[in-house]
């Protein structure tokens, strides 16, 4: 009898495992793609990075229950599930980046550099080099995302500590400051040397400005230029109910992708991008009314998406595993909206935009959905009910795509086979 019971337990476990593999860790994917739950409950996993040997590092927004804030994950038996998970670090943050044997990680103020050994283990977890220190972090949009170009320069977003640069932030009727003083030290991308230690603001350069908050960014090796995803402004209807309805606010402004070159200005806080008129509109804090255009000197977005979906990661796919249409295209992890309320929320998925010769080549589409855990076509009504929220992206050496979630701390591995 006991043996039968044990046998049944085994059968049940086997069925559960098999169904986990079959249901793609709960994700909805295009035909031919499969997903596994690479890791679960590791903590608030923001951005992720992978070494050429396939070792994955995740940066946590807060130290996890074990008190660690950078997690190292390795899949030694190659079954699509991490089996060797360790961690260190006491500081929360978002940014992480691997270049050769250099591992960069950020807190909200600083950028650190750890050295890896031949097994991609950190040689000294207690003593990273401080590459940049003292970056501005004032609660709102404080997280620092990073990427490197091919020349050893590091690019970091410094988010604006404001919604629309009002004299009093998020205060109805408070005017926009002219010029916006926040732009001197935030609301843009700064460029620093990737190796020099203890750099401060004065050592860096404001590479691009007029970006309210960037979380997802990537260096495009084909165009040899920086691409970023901006989080558009909130609350047009709350502050200007006579100009914008709830329904209009749910669709305004667009979430935007920009290709940046040195000196570019994307227009925040003076303008926002309207996805219907396909124009830069003057912000109401600066005299706009939903019809007046602005931002003559500001660049236009490369691609735009529905409002408030919170693009938290951008990755240009350079692998060979996925079908041809994905080559050099952009994957974007949308963390999911809150400011569309009272209308249903959007996002909580990974989107894809095809690119050809460094330019978008077709409409964007949803690539991976189902992170929220809701069934069918049910939309997230309240953000806290979403099971997982996509936040980071990384490409494995075999061309698989990894997606991190900062809610439950899951890492999904998405692969393709014919």
């Amino acid at each position, binding site marked *: 009898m006991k043996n039968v019971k044990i046998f049944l337990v085994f059968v049940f476990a086997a069925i559960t495992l098999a169904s986990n593999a079959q249901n793609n860790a709960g994700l909805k994917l295009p035909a031919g793609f499969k997903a596994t739950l690479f890791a679960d409950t590791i903590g608030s996993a923001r951005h992720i990075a992978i070494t050429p040997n396939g070792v994955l590092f995740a940066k946590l927004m807060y130290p996890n229950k074990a008190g660690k804030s950078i997690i190292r994950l390795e899949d030694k038996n190659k079954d699509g599930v991490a089996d060797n998970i360790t961690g260190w670090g006491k500081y929360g943050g978002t940014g992480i980046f691997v270049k050769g044997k250099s591992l960069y990680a950020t807190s909200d103020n600083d950028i650190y550099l750890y050295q890896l050994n031949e097994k991609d283990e950190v040689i000294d977890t207690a003593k990273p080099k401080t590459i940049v220190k003292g970056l501005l972090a004032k609660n709102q949009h*404080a997280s620092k995302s990073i990427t490197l170009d091919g020349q050893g320069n590091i690019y970091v977003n410094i988010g604006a500590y404001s919604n629309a640069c009002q004299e*009093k*932030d998020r205060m109805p009727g408070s005017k926009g400051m002219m010029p916006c003083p926040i732009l001197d030290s935030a609301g843009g991308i700064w460029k620093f040397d990737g190796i020099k230690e203890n750099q401060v603001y004065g050592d860096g350069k404001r590479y691009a400005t007029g970006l309210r908050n960037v979380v997802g960014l990537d260096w495009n090796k084909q165009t040899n230029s920086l691409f970023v995803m901006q989080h558009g402004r909130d609350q047009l209807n709350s502050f200007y109910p006579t100009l914008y309805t709830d329904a209009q606010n749910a669709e305004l402004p667009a979430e935007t992708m920009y290709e940046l070159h040195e000196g570019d200005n994307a227009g925040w806080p003076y303008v926002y991008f309207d996805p219907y008129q396909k124009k830069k509109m003057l912000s109401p804090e600066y005299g706009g009314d939903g019809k007046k255009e602005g931002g003559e000197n500001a660049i236009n977005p490369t691609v735009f998406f529905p409002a408030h979906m919170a693009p938290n990661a951008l990755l240009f796919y350079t692998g060979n595993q996925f079908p041809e249409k994905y080559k050099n295209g952009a994957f974007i992890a949308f963390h999911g909206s*809150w400011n569309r*309320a009272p209308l249903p929320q959007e996002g909580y998925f990974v989107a894809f935009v095809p690119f050809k010769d460094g330019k978008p080549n077709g409409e964007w589409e949803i690539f991976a959905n189902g992170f929220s855990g809701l069934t069918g076509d049910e939309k997230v009504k309240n*953000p806290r009910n979403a099971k997982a929220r996509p936040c980071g992206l990384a490409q494995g050496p075999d061309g698989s795509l990894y997606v991190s979630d900062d809610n439950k701390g899951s890492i999904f591995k998405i692969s393709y086979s014919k």
Partner: protein
Amino acid sequence: MNYIKILIGSFLILGFAVNVTAQDLAKGKKIYETRCLVCHQADGGGVPNMNAPLDGSSNVVGNDLARLVRIIKGGYSEKIALDGMYYSNAMTANPDFKDADIANVLSYIRTSWSNKATVVTEAQVIAAKNKK
């Protein structure tokens, strides 16, 4: 003991019947939906890491009325630690709210979702404002 229970019972009934009517709660709900819901959400659950939840919040159901009144009226711009989590978004001020509006919306949020705290009267809001 029974006497005390009856006394508290009558007090609660009187409290509802005399000072906070169903109409006041309905007004509070209306204010919540037009001014608060966009950030704190329909379920009062807020937005993880950004906008603090009201449902189940120890601050909202707590006894520091003066602080609640101050935050509703003047907004809040610091990172707030609440029940083991942090919330980073600045809260919009509501300088146009009258004392009765604050009482009504507080009564609504303190008795909605899983919250089962006491309702708040306009007189209590005025008293809380005067308390330093």
